[in-house]
């Protein structure tokens, strides 16, 4: 009686196996530093960050039906906010929090303007605001350091004065911090999209006129979704400065806004894990291609085109259409024996 509530048919087919796999995966991620080099750790961090970034983006695209092309703007807000704070107070938590809040506030303000439109106009408006933030980061040199950006940002210790303090200067420690923060963000996101609020957003995506007759004020819900997306972009951005120790304007450029779009559509916009899968693919594909050829763009482009034409549902849709039925079958048989 319970299971049909909210959970998709496909979701139910898995049974216990996936939960175990999931745990295995998390354990694996935690053990990672012990058997791979720093570079893989570094890449994994970037994948995690992009996953969070793309998840937030997909709350707008996949769940609310709004294509934002300016998320990099909020990403940059997070990054610059965090960097600024770290340069003043070399302590990790204040930095991250400052970044996230800053991005959230900007998102709230701009969102108020953006949600007046939908579809292509919304995309254009967000693109526009993103580029404004970009040119601000580029031009407001006293604040942002121009194209040299903010330099020498410390990987400050994670501390609560008087209670504890963990040194983050080693990449390993910071890896664990990023991993835990991102996992929490992902779990939280899972709760959000499977909450009544998440369902309501999907209603807005499916039919604006109809949702109004459920007594829902479309604009307010869009604004909330936009702000949450901004917060997630901000979190992703805020995790960056301590890792790279630099933030530069290109973080806000539209080509960077294209990354979550790319990741999400590669992975699949109508499945929770889509953006995460996409983020992983995006980085691995790029990283592998770059090793073999100087002409990695054309390969990435070809893959993108091929996927859009051949697999609009995104990679994850393969798993839904092929793998899951198969698992379900095997699982059913197994249980009968």
């Amino acid at each position: 009686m319970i299971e049909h509530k909210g959970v998709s048919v496909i979701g139910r087919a898995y049974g216990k196996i996936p939960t175990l796999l999931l745990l295995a995966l998390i354990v694996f991620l935690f053990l990672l530093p012990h058997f791979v080099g720093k570079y893989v750790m570094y890449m994994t961090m970037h994948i995690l960050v992009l996953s969070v970034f793309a998840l937030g983006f997909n709350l707008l695209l996949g769940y609310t039906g709004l294509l934002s092309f300016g998320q990099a703007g909020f990403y940059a807000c997070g990054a610059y906010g965090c960097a600024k704070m770290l340069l003043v107070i070399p302590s990790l938590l204040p930095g991250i929090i400052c970044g996230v809040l800053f991005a959230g506030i900007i998102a709230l303000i701009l969102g108020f303007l953006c949600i007046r439109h939908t579809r292509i106009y919304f995309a254009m408006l967000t693109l526009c605001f993103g580029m404004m933030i970009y040119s601000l980061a580029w031009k407001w040199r006293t604040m942002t350091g121009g194209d040299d950006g903010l330099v020498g940002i410390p990987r400050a210790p994670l501390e609560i004065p008087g209670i504890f303090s963990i040194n983050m200067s080693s990449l390993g420690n910071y890896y664990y911090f990023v991993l835990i923060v991102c996992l929490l963000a992902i779990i939280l996101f899972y709760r959000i999209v499977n909450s009544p609020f998440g369902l309501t957003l999907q209603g807005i995506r499916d039919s604006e006129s109809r949702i109004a007759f459920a007594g829902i004020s479309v604009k307010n819900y869009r604004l909330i979704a936009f702000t949450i997306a901004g917060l997630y972009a901000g979190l992703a951005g805020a995790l960056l400065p301590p890792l790279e120790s630099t933030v530069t304007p290109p973080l806000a450029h539209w080509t960077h806004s294209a990354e979550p779009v790319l990741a999400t559509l590669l992975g699949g916009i109508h499945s929770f894990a889509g953006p995460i899968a996409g983020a992983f693919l995006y980085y691995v594909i790029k990283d592998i291609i770059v090793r073999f050829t100087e002409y990695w763009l054309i390969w990435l482009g070809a893959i993108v085109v091929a996927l859009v034409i051949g697999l609009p549902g995104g990679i994850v849709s393969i798993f839904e259409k092929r793998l899951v039925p198969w698992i379900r079958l095997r699982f059913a048989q197994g249980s009968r024996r």
Partner: protein
Amino acid sequence: MDPFTVCPRESSMTELLKTEDLRKAFGHFTAVDGVNIHFTTDALTSIIGPNGAGKTTLINLLTGSLPVDSGKIFFKGREITKIPTDERVRRGIGRSFQIMNIFPMLTVFQNIQLPVLSLLHKSLKFFSRLDAHRDAIDEVERILKEGGLWEKRDMLAGELSHGDQRLLEMGIAIASKPELCFLDEPTSGMNPVERVKILENIRKLSDEKRTTFIIVEHDMDVVFSLSDRIVVMHRGSIIADGKPNEIKENQNVKEVYLGEELGEEST
């Protein structure tokens, strides 16, 4: 208080909605031309009229889907002319659409769950699981069983048959427990079987006196078998208003329908 234990209304009729000289024009074409109408709790009303008579426009005005040019709308004595749709809905107005309007990518269950949660003021719960809200779930189950869609609860709404989608749409409409509910051609494109099914539903719900239905219909059989009161619109204004048998006799109506035998015309 629990919104589902609706105290049965006292049978004496009370006025729900009334309009004053309502007007709406699209360019030069006047769709609704000074309509004064009122709906009461004791009657299942049908609005009929040839195509382009302004029936759907009228509903759009009353539900706030369209802004009025001039005139006033009162619901339960308070003016609602200017307030947005979602607020009107919260005050007790609901509708179904002429063109199918459901949540195609959600399951049937979720289609109903959505308005129910909203009614329970739970739509802004961010972190709680959907199945944590038993009250909503039981209500959805009740509605789906009434509507005869329970078996199909896990299908995607978009994959339902046309008839089932109509049923679902009505389900959504009544899920938010409107006191006044407009049904815009609820039986259009249905086969006779489905049609009977949905009409039974409407009649039943109407008799339970929880909801007062206003139906826009082309099918005269439906109209005359179902309605307590019939309103005839033509060129944006009301030309007749009364009990079915009165309407049958009404001269203007006959003219409007070019002397067609009423009751045989169906679209």
